[in-house]
């Protein structure tokens, strides 16, 4: 039986699945419900001076029928009084002493920071999360992402907090920055116990092309918001990887960004996250998704022989290198399994128009399985990604693996293209049709 318990920077949780700070953690009622159904922890919707929110607040990318592939919000921090939130926090901890309750905070002055930290500690919180990431509404006033984008300010505020904190402090980072490892290092220098990332990405979700305004619409007007949901996972994964690999960070990472199922969670954990937080998927499906998350993680651990979570945290990190360290001699070519092909011919047009013209159609139009032109195939695997049939297009290795060479090595050996017409150009030798031939098709 796999053990899902974690100890994240000193915060104990029965499993790594936490609710991220947002509408699902607005009230003690919701958090109790979630804990009752099996969530391990919850980060309370950011506490501070309560706001007044607008209506409408959300927009979504519904990609060809799949709803909420991407999600946007222009909602701010809690609009409830601190005293109400604190009272509920105490109640939740009374009923669920073994579950992790983390208070997310966003205030301005040193006095406010230190006061609110004491308040949530008195209410029984197990940890604190500093919200330096909200990309709309708060940053205009010098809070949220305005702090997250200024490492020096972030370090200063974190130090204020560390002066009075008696429970673990997590710094939540904004992705709206060129190099997220900078604020992460600042958090570390200030003595923070952990970091969590990502917060939402500054974005405009779409335009109402008939009324000439963006979504969400507030009385004919709109504003930019924060993007989240399954669409942002790749951005989050990369940033988690960057922080987890950085030699000067080395504190636990809580992964956030489009987690919807157990597989997403495992991906974050393999890149170094030792807890994960979920918000959008809960807004979509309710707390019930925890059944799939717990069951899937357990099954993954069982099938891979992991008895505890820490046995696989960061296991993929050693394999994620700099581009210049990748093996240039690794050669793969696409192969189409005719018995599985359904004849959509999408691989052909993708390669023909969008890549390297390495796939051809048959002369006999009744055979709709395209053919790979091996000499032209560069092994980009675009066709394999597009093919709708499982295992119909596979990439087959052609080199024997004995010769490895990287861009870095070649550069050091002086064996890379340096001039514009260099004979070492990688694409030299690949045949490309003459431009006028395009007009004959």
């Amino acid at each position, binding site marked *: 039986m796999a053990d899902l318990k974690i100890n994240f920077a000193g915060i104990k949780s029965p499993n790594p699945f936490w609710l991220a700070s947002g509408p699902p953690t607005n009230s003690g009622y919701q958090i109790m419900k979630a804990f009752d159904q099996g969530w391990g922890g919850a980060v309370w919707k950011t506490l501070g001076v309560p706001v007044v929110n607008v209506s409408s607040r959300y927009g979504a990318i519904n990609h060809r029928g799949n709803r909420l592939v991407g999600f946007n919000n222009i909602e701010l921090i809690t609009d409830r009084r601190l005293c109400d939130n604190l009272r509920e926090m105490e109640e939740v901890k009374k009923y669920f002493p073994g579950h992790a309750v983390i208070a997310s905070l966003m205030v301005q002055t040193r006095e406010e920071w230190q006061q609110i930290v004491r308040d949530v500690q008195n209410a029984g919180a197990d940890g604190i999360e500093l919200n330096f990431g909200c990309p709309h509404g708060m940053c205009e006033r010098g809070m949220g992402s305005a702090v997250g984008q200024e490492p020096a300010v972030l370090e200063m505020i974190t130090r204020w907090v560390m002066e009075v904190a008696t429970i673990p402090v997590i710094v939540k980072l904004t992705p709206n920055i060129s190099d997220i490892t900078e604020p992460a290092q600042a958090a570390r220098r200030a003595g923070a116990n952990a970091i969590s990332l990502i917060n939402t990405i500054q974005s405009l979700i779409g335009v109402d092309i008939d009324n000439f305004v963006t979504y969400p619409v507030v009385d004919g007007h709109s504003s930019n918001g924060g993007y989240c949901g399954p669409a942002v996972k790749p951005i989050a994964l990369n940033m988690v990887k960057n922080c987890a690999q950085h030699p000067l960070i080395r504190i636990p990472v809580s992964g956030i960004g489009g987690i919807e199922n*157990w597989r997403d969670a495992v991906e974050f954990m393999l890149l170094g996250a030792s807890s994960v937080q979920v918000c959008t998927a809960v807004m979509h*499906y309710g707390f019930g998704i925890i059944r799939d998350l717990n*069951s899937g993680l357990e*099954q993954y651990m069982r099938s891979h022989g992991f008895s505890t979570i820490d046995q696989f945290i960061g296991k993929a990190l050693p394999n994620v290198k700099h581009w210049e360290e990748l093996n240039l001699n690794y050669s793969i070519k696409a192969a189409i399994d005719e018995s599985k092909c359904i004849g959509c011919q999408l691989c052909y047009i993708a390669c023909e128009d969008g890549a390297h013209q390495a796939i051809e159609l048959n002369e006999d139009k009744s055979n709709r399985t395209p053919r790979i032109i091996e000499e032209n195939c560069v092994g980009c695997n675009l066709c394999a990604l597009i093919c709708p049939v499982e295992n119909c297009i596979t990439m087959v290795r052609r080199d024997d693996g004995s010769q490895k060479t990287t861009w870095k090595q070649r550069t050091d050996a002086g064996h890379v293209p340096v001039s514009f017409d260099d004979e070492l150009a990688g694409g030299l030798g690949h045949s490309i049709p003459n431009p006028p031939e395009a007009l004959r098709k």
Partner: protein
Amino acid sequence: MVEPEKKKDVPDVGQLFKQIKPLMNKSEAYYESSRCLFCYQAPCTLACPTSIDIPLFIRQINNGNLIGAAKTIYQSNYLGNTCGKVCPTEVLCEGACVFTKVNIKPLDIGRLQNFATDHAILTHQKFFEAPGFNGKSVAVIGAGPAGISCACRLRSEGYKVDVYEARNNPSGLALHGVAPYKITNEEALMEVEFLRAQFGFNVFYNKRISGKEDIEHLEAGYDAIFLGIGLGNSAEIKIKGEGKQNCTGATGFIEQIKTGPIEKLTAKRVIVLGGGNTAMDAASESARLGAGKVILAYRRSAAEMKAYYFEYDLAKVAGVEGIFNIAPVEIVGERAVEGVKFIRTETVDGKLRNIPGSEFVIPCDLVIKATGQLKQTSLMAHISGLKVDKDGRITIDEATGQTTNPKYFAGGDAVNGGAEVVNASAEGKFAGSGIHEFLSNKS
């Protein structure tokens, strides 16, 4: 029991009885499971007699947790694979799918269930482990879906369970009665073996419990007894000429197809009497076995037929002709069946009556009676204090499955009068919980 005329060649069963719910391939399972909305308090789960968490297992299939999906199914229904194949999903889970409200094809739940459970059975997954012997033992009479389900439930609490089965195979009607294009014998047996391997109940075949002595022996040797005895042979119609050669009961007819060597029917005209699902099965199967013409004769109107609409559709696709509002009055012929004399009927003031002087004969050479099954009254008579209702169905306490003889519990066809495998599965498991509560309170 009379047998239909047979020819010597053995037709290809695969062709005759192509699976109407074939196994999905990976792409199918992926795209179909992607359609599921993951409803809250899903109507499909509410419609399932065993309350399988359908959105969860579909989601688990979708994100590659096939083992988890099978586990989800088996945690609610021990006969998850059989049910996925034989359940009338069109009127249960699939019929309840929210998509039907907007004319979108409902999720193919039965086949998704098969996709997960077939995999689990073929890869010998172990989802359950029976705890150590708790000191008490229970006898289960009947290794059909109700009995097996009860056995599993009891084994999960550590009871020693002995199942007594009259035939030489388990699965009851799931094997002997359900049409071969829904589930093959192999598949039905594989699931029972999959369960037996994990739960460790014992099955004694060819052990019909019939007389007072058998009953006394069980009562002395076990702390409780579950009756999963099902129904008996096809009911008689009680008309003149019923005993002629080639006039047979549907139950026996279908059982022959499922257990004997498959041989083509040489009958030129078959008349099936009845309007329930068994009549539809018998008609469909006769047609597929090569009968020249198959007529389904029901004494009421088509709208009043008890059979599921899709079973009648299946029969029509096989070429069966339905003739309604005709009631059989006599089987005519020398020694063997040569025809059936019918009288036309009509419903007047809600009551069915024959129209005098409207008799006519439809010639045929095989009659299959599918108007119901008899109850196992002879066995039940030996159990003291066992109450049955006016239709011969065993009376139970709805909250526990206990009969009026406290040592006996019951479920399945013997209690509900003849329903689906899924009902038997649910009732057997429910009675198992009832037995556990009863025996836990006793000591």
